[in-house]
């Protein structure tokens, strides 16, 4: 284990869809530009992934679609069960406590850890929100699962979060379909922050938005990161977004991590041919 400021240490994370065969490795991976074995049709979504995440840091995960970055994120989110590997977690509020392997927790503890210590924001709001509830109800969900039982207090907290995420608090009881795309991303962020999580997971959060709206949402995220020293895992296919927010970055291709390091270094001096391709094709 490394220096005490780490919050997450993932190693050996694997996820495949299909039975696998002895020849999979021969035909899949970045060198073959392929994720699916032609013999047994197994998709190797994530292969032997690992990284360290420090408190207060933003780690970017960049790659094209199908690279495995969302799979990796969802394994950290404890939503997709990993086939193998470890995710060691050290709770920032109790730095002297023993680290816990999140993948060894039972379903009940997983569910409650996820609700309490993690926050997630999806590209599409319907994945992170329930369109049948009000905006306030959506933001309240994590609080309610954490046993908040006073409606007055809950609503006060919701309004607080809405202000924090630059949403008009008087719209607390409105239906989500009356909100624009950018506003719904803010609602997701408000919901994610409601439990004061120690880690925020962001999955392509600006990829569906207009440039100007994108910029505002990114500004918000940057502000929250700065004010709360929030640890974040940020997935994007857009190097521009990564550059704005992530101090360190890992690059994925065909399920493998091909390069990792300081964002600035990677952008200036990419080592892996795929990273070079990415950097050169970015605006």
């Amino acid at each position: 284990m490394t220096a005490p400021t780490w919050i997450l240490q993932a190693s050996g994370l694997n996820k495949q869809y299909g039975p696998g065969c002895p020849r999979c490795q021969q035909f899949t991976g970045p060198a073959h530009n392929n994720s699916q074995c032609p013999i047994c049709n197994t998709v190797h979504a994530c292969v032997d992934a690992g990284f360290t995440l420090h408190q207060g840091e933003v780690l970017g995960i960049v790659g094209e679609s199908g690279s495995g970055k969302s799979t990796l994120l969802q394994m950290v989110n404890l939503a997709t069960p990993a086939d193998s590997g470890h995710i060691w977690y050290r709770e920032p509020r109790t730095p002297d406590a023993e680290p816990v392997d999140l993948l060894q927790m039972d379903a009940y503890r997983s569910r409650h850890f996820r609700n309490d210590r993690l926050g997630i924001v999806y590209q599409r709001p319907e994945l992170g929100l329930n369109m049948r509830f009000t905006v306030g109800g959506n933001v309240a969900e994590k609080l309610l699962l954490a046993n908040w039982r006073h409606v007055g207090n809950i609503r006060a907290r919701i309004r607080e979060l809405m202000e924090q995420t630059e949403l008009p608090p008087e719209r607390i009881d409105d239906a989500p379909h009356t909100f624009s795309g950018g506003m719904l991303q803010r609602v997701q962020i408000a919901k994610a922050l409601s439990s004061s999580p120690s880690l925020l997971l962001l999955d392509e959060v600006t990829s569906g938005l207009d440039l100007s709206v994108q910029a505002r949402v990114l500004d918000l995220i940057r502000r929250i990161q700065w004010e709360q020293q929030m640890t974040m895992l940020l997935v994007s296919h857009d190097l521009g977004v990564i550059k704005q927010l992530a101090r360190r970055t890992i690059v994925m291709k065909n399920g493998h991590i091909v390069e990792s390091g300081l964002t600035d270094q990677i952008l200036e001096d990419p080592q892996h041919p795929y990273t070079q391709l990415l950097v050169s094709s970015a605006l």
Partner: protein
Amino acid sequence: MSTTPEQLYNFGFIDEDSKREVRRQILKAIALPGHQVPFASRDLPIARGWGTGGLQITMAIIDANDILKVIDQGDDESVNAVNLRRLLQRTTGVTTTVDTTAASIIQTRHRIPEEPMRRDQILVLQVPMVDPLRWVEPNLERATVMHGESDYGRMWVYMYESVVKAGDLRIATQYPVIVAGRYMMDTTPIPRWDVMRLHNAEALFLFGAGREKRIYAVPPYTTIEPLQFEDFRFKTEFVAGQICARCGAQDTFLTSHFVVDTTNPAGGYWRTSCSDTSFCDKRVLVNTTNQEAPQ
């Protein structure tokens, strides 16, 4: 016909293997208060939705020495109660009663009797819809996982939304409660008046859903916590000043019905009376004996 059809059937109608399965599932339900236990619900001569779940529980546990009471909406003489009692009586020969205090097994639809039940009594409730999560998750597979992980957040959001939209907890009956601090349970269409009777009670409560094929139970001395907020508490239907027009009770669940004025076709009035008719009758008898006129 010299032989009435019922004589061709087993004691309690369903066969012994079926009874055994039902009893095993009942035991499992008692061991996991509030948890829905699947059972292979048999088809009965009564239609699905009309009490087949409650019937199968009663058929599985009843023996020749039991004394049976059957009520519907609290009334022994309601047509459906009469019909179910008829089926049970003919296939078992047991003595039946309308007196709550004399019965060993009471099968009921939508009410818990007003007189508190004792530890030697069992109340069998008929359940139409089983899963309290159906409002937020109709898919059974996903709802089962939610129960397994105690993942009730969405149901609490539903309660929050009802407060926000209607100014109060909007659920009238089938009120969701947490049983023994663990499972969320649908209390069936009993009025909220009756919900807390399940809490810390002496008697055993068994819930049977024939069509949905589930059994659940609230054993004696089990905690029942209705879903509520600190600033929006669970309330019963109690209205101050309510009174039964027959027996004068002010502390029972009342229902209203329209009384037609035989002298004036356009006239008539609404009358409230106890839903628990046998309890009401007892009080009327007491009143008459004591020569107290009802208010």
